């Protein structure tokens, strides 16, 4: 194809004040300004958001799914990181 590729952007939306931005999808756009406009048109037609982020997809660094075990498995055995691991007598009350 002779045509140049239009960059891909990931779209994040903050639904309400006080919430974090959440990934909503992606769009193609030549630059940041057009990416914001396209994201508004494509992902917020029904008041889905109060704030938008767009990030070039090629700027995102992701963990490799094949490293999943190495990355996340070790935490499974560390039950002492959770409050229920510790025994506190009932008389002490809520803690």
């Amino acid at each position, binding site marked *: *194809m002779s*045509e*140049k*590729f*239009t960059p*891909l952007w990931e779209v994040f939306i903050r639904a309400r004040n006080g919430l974090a931005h959440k990934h909503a*999808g*992606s*769009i*193609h*756009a*030549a*630059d940041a300004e*057009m990416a914001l406009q396209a994201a508004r*048109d*494509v*992902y917020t*037609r*029904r008041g889905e958001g109060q704030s938008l982020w767009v990030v070039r997809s090629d700027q995102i660094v*992701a963990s*490799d*799914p*094949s490293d999943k075990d190495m990355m996340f498995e070790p935490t499974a055995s560390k039950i002492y990181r959770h409050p229920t691991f510790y025994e506190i007598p009932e008389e002490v009350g809520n803690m």
Partner: protein
Amino acid sequence: MYSQGLIGADGSTVETEEFLEAFQKRVDAEQKIEPNDPMPEGYRRTLVRQISQHAHSEIVGMLPEGNWITRAPTLRRKAALLAKVQDEGGHGLYLYSAAETLGVSREELTDQLLTGAAKYSSIFNYPALTWADIGAIGWLVDGAAIMNQIALCRCSYGPYSRAMIRICKEESFHQRQGYEILLTLCRGTDAQKKMAQEAVNRIWWPALMMFGPHDSASTHSDQSMHWKIKRFSNDNLRDKFVNATVPQAEYLGLTVPDPNLKWNEEKQGYDYSDIDWDEFWRVVKGDGICNRDRIKARQKAHREGAWVREAALAFAEKRAGAADAARTAAE
């Protein structure tokens, strides 16, 4: 529209038994498959084909209705139709993005549509002749699409399933606005009611065809069901649609154009005539009333937008260059 997307999908695959078994186990455990997860080539290929055909259907689907925006009878109808057509454009974009997560580019997908290499739902190769067709399309075509898409919300591929959930939320107004158009016509003059009936006569059978070929003729269905790309058979969804829709037609006071339509007490569903499969295959293979016009319209839009895409990219490059230069100067 959309199980039709499986026509021609080739699920054959080359991985080891071990790999396929491990994959199947994940699918059976209802674990979603995500873009970078290992997956059989056949799974990837089937999905690219189905999702892109689904996306093309949304995009081409804007044409028959878009044609009526300027002629909508009231401002209320015009605003609703405009919003609906805009939604369909959005649906196309969500779906292209989902297909792109499987390693195919937007440019390739667009190219496949414009060269006629890709298929889209046969329904959009029928014209929308009167305003009543806009009502019948919303009620029957979007109704059939919803039936299909709700079933796809639980698809094993994460990005497709998430796009479907979003789309289903937006679809229900499409069907309701269509039904409301017909309801208004049916409560109007005799001529208006006649117009509504004629629209239903035209669109009923093509809407039933949207569910794709008979289960016995749907060659790649088994593999897709096994991989949970597809969760219900074509005939199963078609029956559900007929059962849900006939009472709605009765409420309108309209008849469904099928002399053999009859309630079957035993199966708690309607019996209906066989579909004209010759017509179905003719339209799928490119010989419907509007196939050529639809592709021509898409090609024209693409051609006429080329300078905009070029200019936008050139402007972005120029600005990026200027920013780089400013940074270098500041250092």
